[in-house]
């Protein structure tokens, strides 16, 4: 079959050559990381979550690869603070890659201060981390309360001009929380973050991570992430969703697109496969679309949701 297939997508007002970006936390806090992510082939860079002040994160052990193909991490949001923003954004800009800055905070004020700094430094969009499941006073501790989500998103959207994405995690109230984020001005939603989990060393008879709990990523969470994307897209049809959670190959990316995602973030896949991940997925998507006789990737977004 010799058909021109268009894998480009428009999301957050950015025209991306394909829908694959790194997930926040896979590199993304030092200027040197930009070249590595570029060599992986991402269409946009998502930074590590930046907070106002530098954070050391949790002490090691902070990560473990699990027998089921997942990764459990409890980094504790280590980052250089806003002082490090300018260098990485500049580095991405000089290489012509759009940059989405992930912003964290333990208060509404911190979220908006970091977002303002990121915009001033040249960020193309802001992703609000309302979903990290393992860091006290950050992330999911705030993001599971619909009212706090509303307040944070409203405050940040009102303080900056670039698009705001709310990154939400798995909770029982995800549909309601998603609605609040959209109502408050979120241009898009990133769904989902890692899922709170733990690993026990059976000889030490102790939790392995120093923080006891971590966030599970990779293939084991993919069916859950697909379900969340599907449900939220069904509820708020036409919204922009960026999916994350266990996308490891073209097949799992295709599922996300069909469930309603316009773009897909890769975390664990980039750790496991590095520069091989994205070319492999793009090749697979190309063949898959050809097989379906579909000319543009845009046409499959949300297709599984048709009534």
């Amino acid at each position, binding site marked *: 079959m010799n058909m021109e297939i268009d894998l480009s997508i428009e999301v957050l007002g950015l025209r991306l050559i394909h829908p694959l970006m790194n997930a926040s*936390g*896979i*590199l*993304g*806090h*030092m200027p*040197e*990381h930009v*070249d*590595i992510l570029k*060599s992986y082939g991402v269409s946009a860079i998502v930074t*590590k979550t930046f907070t106002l002040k530098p954070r050391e*994160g949790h*002490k*090691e*052990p*902070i*990560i*473990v*690869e*699990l*027998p089921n*193909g997942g*990764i459990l*991490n409890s*980094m504790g949001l*280590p980052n250089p603070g806003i002082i490090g923003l300018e260098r990485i954004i500049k580095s991405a800009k000089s290489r012509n890659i759009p940059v989405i800055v992930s912003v964290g905070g333990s208060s509404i004020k911190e979220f908006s201060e970091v977002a303002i700094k990121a915009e001033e430094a040249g960020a193309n969009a802001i992703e609000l981390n309302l979903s990290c499941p393992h860091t006290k006073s950050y992330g999911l501790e705030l993001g599971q309360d619909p009212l706090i989500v509303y307040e944070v998103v409203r405050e940040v959207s009102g303080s900056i001009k670039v698009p705001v994405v709310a990154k939400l995690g798995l909770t029982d109230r995800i549909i309601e929380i998603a609605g609040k984020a959209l109502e408050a001005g979120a241009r898009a939603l990133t769904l989902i973050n890692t899922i709170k989990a733990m690993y026990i*060393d*059976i*000889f*030490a008879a*102790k*939790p*392995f*991570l*120093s923080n*006891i709990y971590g966030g599970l990523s990779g293939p084991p969470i993919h069916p859950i992430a697909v379900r969340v994307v599907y449900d939220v897209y069904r509820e708020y049809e036409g919204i922009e969703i960026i999916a994350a959670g266990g996308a490891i190959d073209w097949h799992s990316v295709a599922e996300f697109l069909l469930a309603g995602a316009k773009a897909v973030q890769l975390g664990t896949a980039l*750790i*496991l*496969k*590095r520069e091989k991940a994205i070319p492999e997925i793009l090749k697979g998507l190309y063949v898959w679309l050809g097989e379906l006789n579909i000319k543009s990737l845009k046409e499959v977004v949300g297709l599984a949701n048709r009534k």
Partner: protein
Amino acid sequence: MRSSNYITMYDLGEGFLYTTGRVVDAQRIGQRFCRLKLRLGRDLGEVSPFQFVMAGLPGEFEIPLTVSMYNREKLILDLFFKVREYSTEKLCGSIKYISLRGFYGKNRLNLVIGDKVLYITEDLGFSSLPLLISWIKKNSKVLDVIMVFENESEIFEVAKLIDMDFSGRIVQCIRSDLEERLDLVTKSTTSNTWKTILAAGGRELLKKACELAYELGAEGVIAPYTRIKCGIGACGYCIIPRTKYLLCVDGPIFKCSELASYLGLEHGD
């Protein structure tokens, strides 16, 4: 999959492995060093010199340690390290099990190594000596070593660490004498026969080794140290400054030319 009799473990996908090691022996060597022998719950795969494991106590700490020796048949792993703070004190103490992830540093020592090698190493790089020497023997190469100690009180009898039956020489010196030693080495009659200058240590030592390699027309191969947090290419903390290399996945060794901007080398090699 090989496994020892007290436990069977599993493969963790693309080469990332976790196991528990039972401490078989913990021995202090000299005043500041420790040699640890562990029997692993499962095979961690083939290892090559300078690769490392993340070793620790679950829930408490985890540190990168270079593999000193690994017997795949018997699943015996040797670690050799300088005892310097709580975690290394504890590892050399009376604990029974140690958690291990590895082997990390995917870029294995291979054919970039010439027939006659000079290895210059500071204390952190001593750990790789046993494995390096066994590799050198297996590949019929010659190895001369300069071991650089912080001060005289740290010097130990090297036969306690390595099998001395190999082709080459070992010189021990303290840091303040290194310049002099290197000068002697460069001017020695054998200097022009080294095909590879290998070095492990801090930036200054690596820079000197690369300059020496350039001077002698040899290949410079270096094992730098950085902070290691995750060990699997996720966090980015092990980036070699001003390069695009992550030590934990692109390392553990590099050609001097690859790290020229980090070392501030005037020439590329």
